[in-house]
C-alpha cells in the first residue's frame, strides 16, 4: 500500500504541488490527469524519490521524507519519466539495454527470470528486434522498450509519467495491456499520468490535477456523473457560464437540455467553480476573402529521406481555401518534416509540392510567398527575454509593417485573442496556452492567406486547447484563411474539416471528417476510427 501525506513540492521557487493526500492499494492502477504544469510530474518525481519534497510518503510501512531516505525503497520502484525513449541510450541495441538494466538492477539470473524476460519482450512485441538500436526504433517501440526496462526487476511500485504521449494509438493499447496484466498478475501498484482523456477509463481511480492540487477523485464514470448537472447544450445566458463549441457549462440551473459530459468537461466545470471565466474570443472580419474551393496547397508523391529512413514517402494531399486540414499521426510519423518541406526548409527527395500554384523546392521559393504564409513552429519560436509586446513589435518589423499599424494590430489582437493583460510580461513566465495564442497572433500579423501550425496544442491544457480550436474556426470563417495543423491528439480530428493520417511517413487515411463517421458508424470516437487504419 502507498500512502501520500501532505506532499508538497517546490521547483525553482515555484510551487508545483501544494498539499497532496491520497492512498493507493496493491494491484490498483491510479491515473494522474491534468494539464502541463498542473503538478503531475512533480508528484510522480517525489514518489519516485528523485526530487526534494515536503510531507511524507509511506510505502508498505516504510516512511520516507526525502530522496535520500527513499533510497531504501528504490529497488521496489520502477520509474519511467516523461519523454519518448527518455531513459534509453540511442546507440545501444534492445539486447544491450536489457543486459544493462539487469546489471544495474542487480537481478538474479535464473530460469524464472529468463521466462519473465521472454514474456515481457513477447508482450511488447520486441522479441524479433533484439539487435536493433534504440535510436532506430519508432516512438511506440521506444516506449515499450522503456517500459520493459522499467519492469525488468519486477517493481512493486510502478510510476509512469505520460508513457503514452505521442505514441501511436495501437502501441498505446498494447502498452495498456501490458500494464493491466502486470497489475493483476503481480499485484503491482501503478501510478500513471496521461494527457489522453480516453485512457482515463482504463484506470481504477483518477486524480484530477489543477494548479498543484487534486480537484477531483474517483473512477471516470463517477467523475462524469458528478458534473452532469452543469453541462448543457450550447446556449446564450446571463448567468456565469463558459460556452465552447456545442456545449455550455453553467453552475446554475438552466432550463435547457443537458449535454453528455466528457472527462474534459471536468476542467471547464472546475474553471467555473474557481470563478475563472474565459474571455470571449472573436476576430474581426477582414475584407479579403479568397473564395471557396481554390486549391491552396497540393502535394503529390512527396518523399523525404534521411539516410535509409523515409520521413515521408509518397504523400499526396490537398489543402483548399477556407479549410482546416489536420495532419495527424504519432511522434515520428513525419508531420513536422512535411511542414518543413512546405516552408522550403528541407529539400524534397521526390515528388512535388505546390503552394498557390507555385512549386516549392527551396527557401527562395518560399520567400516569394512569405507574405501569404503564417507559421507557428512546434516550440513557439519566441524570444524569451523580450516581452510579449516587444516580440510582436519585432515580428511586425520583420514583415515591414509600420509602427502605427503594428500598435493598432497589437491592441486589437491582444483583445481578440485574450492576452491583453500579459502584453508586458516575458513569454517564459506565462502559461503555455497564452504563449500559444500569442504565437498565433504573431503569425497572422501580416494577414497571411494560409497558416501552418506545427503541434500548437501539444502540452496545452484542455481549456486552452478548446479555446485555441475556437479561434482557428473564427480565423477560418471570418478571414477565409486556410489552415494546415499537425497534432498527435487523435481526438482533435473532430475540429478539422479534413484529416490526413500519417503512419511511419506514409499516408494511411485521407478524408473529410464527416465521411469518417459514415465509414465507421459504430465507432465512439476518432481514436477508435483511426485504430482501424493502424491495424
Amino acid at each position, binding site marked *: 500500500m502507498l500512502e501520500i501525506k501532505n506532499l508538497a513540492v517546490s521547483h525553482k521557487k515555484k510551487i508545483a504541488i501544494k498539499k497532496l493526500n491520497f492512498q493507493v492499494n496493491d494491484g490498483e492502477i491510479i491515473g494522474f490527469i491534468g494539464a502541463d504544469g498542473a503538478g503531475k510530474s512533480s508528484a510522480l518525481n517525489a514518489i519516485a524519490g528523485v526530487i526534494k519534497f515536503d510531507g511524507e510518503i509511506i510505502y508498505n510501512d516504510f516512511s520516507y521524507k526525502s530522496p535520500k531516505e527513499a533510497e531504501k525503497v528504490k529497488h521496489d520502484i520502477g520509474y519511467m519519466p516523461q519523454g519518448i525513449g527518455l531513459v534509453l541510450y540511442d546507440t545501444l541495441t534492445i539486447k544491450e539495454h536489457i543486459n544493462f538494466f539487469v*546489471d544495474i*538492477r*542487480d537481478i538474479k539470473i535464473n530460469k524464472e527470470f529468463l521466462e519473465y524476460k521472454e514474456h515481457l519482450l513477447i508482450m511488447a512485441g520486441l522479441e524479433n528486434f533484439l539487435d536493433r538500436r534504440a535510436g532506430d526504433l519508432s516512438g511506440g517501440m521506444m516506449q515499450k522498450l522503456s517500459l520493459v526496462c522499467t519492469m525488468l526487476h519486477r517493481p512493486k511500485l510502478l510510476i509512469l509519467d505520460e508513457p503514452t504521449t505521442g505514441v501511436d494509438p495501437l502501441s498505446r493499447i498494447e502498452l495498456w495491456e501490458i500494464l493491466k496484466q502486470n497489475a493483476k498478475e503481480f499485484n503491482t501498484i501503478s501510478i500513471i499520468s496521461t494527457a489522453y482523456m480516453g485512457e482515463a477509463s482504463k484506470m481504477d481511480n483518477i486524480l484530477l490535477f489543477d494548479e498543484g492540487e487534486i480537484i477531483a477523485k474517483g473512477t471516470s464514470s463517477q467523475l462524469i456523473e458528478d458534473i452532469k448537472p452543469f453541462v448543457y447544450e450550447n446556449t446564450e445566458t446571463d448567468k456565469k457560464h463558459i460556452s465552447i463549441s456545442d456545449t455550455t457549462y453553467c453552475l446554475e440551473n438552466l432550463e435547457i437540455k443537458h449535454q453528455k459530459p466528457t472527462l474534459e468537461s471536468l476542467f471547464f466545470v472546475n474553471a467555473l467553480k474557481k470563478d475563472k471565466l474565459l474571455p470571449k474570443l472573436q476576430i474581426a472580419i477582414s475584407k479579403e476573402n479568397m473564395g471557396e474551393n481554390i486549391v491552396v496547397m497540393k502535394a503529390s508523391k512527396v518523399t523525404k529521406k534521411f539516410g535509409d529512413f523515409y520521413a515521408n514517402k509518397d504523400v499526396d494531399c490537398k489543402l483548399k481555401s477556407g479549410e482546416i486540414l489536420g495532419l495527424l499521426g504519432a511522434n515520428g510519423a513525419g508531420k513536422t518534416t512535411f511542414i518543413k518541406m512546405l516552408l522550403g526548409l528541407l529539400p524534397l527527395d521526390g515528388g512535388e509540392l505546390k503552394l498557390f500554384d507555385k512549386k516549392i523546392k527551396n527557401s527562395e521559393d518560399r520567400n516569394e510567398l512569405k507574405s501569404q504564409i503564417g507559421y507557428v513552429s512546434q516550440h513557439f519560436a519566441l524570444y524569451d527575454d523580450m516581452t510579449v509586446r516587444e516580440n510582436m513589435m519585432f515580428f511586425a518589423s520583420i514583415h515591414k509593417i509600420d509602427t502605427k499599424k503594428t500598435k493598432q494590430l497589437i491592441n486589437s489582437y491582444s483583445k481578440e485573442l485574450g492576452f491583453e493583460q500579459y502584453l508586458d510580461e516575458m513569454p517564459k513566465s506565462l502559461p503555455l496556452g497564452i504563449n500559444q495564442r500569442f504565437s498565433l497572433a504573431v503569425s497572422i500579423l501580416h494577414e497571411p492567406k494560409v497558416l501552418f501550425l506545427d503541434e500548437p496544442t501539444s502540452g496545452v491544457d484542455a481549456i486552452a486547447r478548446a479555446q485555441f480550436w475556437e479561434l482557428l474556426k473564427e480565423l477560418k470563417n471570418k478571414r477565409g484563411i486556410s489552415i494546415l495543423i499537425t497534432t498527435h491528439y487523435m481526438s482533435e480530428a473532430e475540429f478539422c474539416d479534413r484529416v490526413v493520417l500519417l503512419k511511419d511517413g506514409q499516408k494511411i487515411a485521407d478524408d473529410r471528417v464527416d465521411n469518417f463517421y459514415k465509414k465507421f458508424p459504430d465507432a465512439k470516437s476518432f481514436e477508435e476510427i483511426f485504430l482501424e487504419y493502424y491495424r
Partner: protein
Amino acid sequence: MRLRVIKAYFLKEMIELIRTKMITMPYLMPLLIVILFGYGIKMQVTGVRTLILDNDNSQISRKLILKFEHSKYFTTMVKNISEKDGLREIKKANIDALIIIPSSFEKNSLKGIKTEIGVFTDASFPSRATTISNYIQGVILDLANDFNIDDSGVININTRNLFNQALRDEEMIVPGLLGMVLLISPAILTALIIAKEKEMGTIFNFYSSSVSKGEFLVAKLSSIFFLVSINIFIVFLVASYLFDLPFRGSFFLFWLASEFYVFVALGFGLLVSIIASSQIVAIIVTLMLTIIPAFMYSGMIMPISSMSGEAFITAHIYPVMYYNHIIYDTFLIGQGFSSSTNILYLLLLFTYGVILFILGLLFLKKEIK
C-alpha cells in the same frame, strides 16, 4: 560497491563512445594540440630580471648599465658579488640573465683591444633565453655605436645558456603541452558523459534505481580513466619520437604522475558535470577551467618563479604546475625519486585528485535540481 553495476556502466559507456565515435576524442584532440602548439609557439619577453656584475666601474660600463635600466625589457640589478655567486642566482631562478663586465673594459674597448662581455641566460625556457640574449646583444651593440667603437669584434659577447644547453623550444614546450592535454581531454570527456545523461534524461536510470553514488561515479570515471591511460603512452611516444625529446628520468615516475594527474582531471570534469545540465555548458565550462590555466600557469610561457602576487598563488592552486615540474624532471633532468620536491608534488597530485573526487561524491545528488 557492486562490481556488476560498475561493469554494466563501463560496458555501456564503451559501446556508446565507440558507436558515437567520441572515442577518437581523447586521442585526436591531444595529438592535435601537441602537434600544433609544439611546432607553433614562439614567445615574447619583457621584464627580464638581469644581474650586472660591473668589474670595471668606468664611464662606459655605467652607461651600459644605464641603458639596461632604461629598457622596458630588463629589470636590472647591479651587485658586487663574485661570478660564481651570480651564476648561483640563475640556478636558484632568482634572475634570468647575468651580465659580467670585465675589468678594464673601457680601456681596452676604446683602444681597440679585444674585450669580452660574459652573458649567461637561464635556458629553462629556450625561446625566451634566445630572445633575452638577442636583446642583450642589441643593447651592447647600441653602446658600441654611441662610443664609436668598431663593432667588428672589439667587444666580444660570450653567450652561455645554462641548464638546457641544446636550446630547443620543443624540449620546453612539449612537456608543458603534455600537462595541458592530459588535463583537458579527460576533464571534457568526464564532464560530457555525465552531462549527456542529464541532457538526454537517461540520468533517471541512476536517480530512480538503487545504484549508489559511489558506484555511479566509479563506473563513469573508470571508463574515461581507462581510455586516457592509454593516451599517456601515446603522448609519451609522440614527445619522444616526433619531437625527439630526451628522456632522462624515471619512466615509472612519469607514468605514475600522469595517472594521478589524469585522476585530478577527471575530478575537474566531475565537478563541472555536477553544475552543468547540458553538454554544451559542460564543454565550455571545462574548457575555461582547464585550457587557460593549463597554458598560463603551466610554467610554459612564463616561469612560475618569475610570477608575483595573485598569479603566483593561482599557479600554486592549480595542479598543472606540480605535474609539469615532474614531467620536466623526467624528460630533461632525471632526478626522479631522489628529489623530495618530486615526491611531494606527486603526493600533492594524488591528494588533489582524492579531494576532487570526494567533493564530487558530496555534491552529486540523486535528485532533480
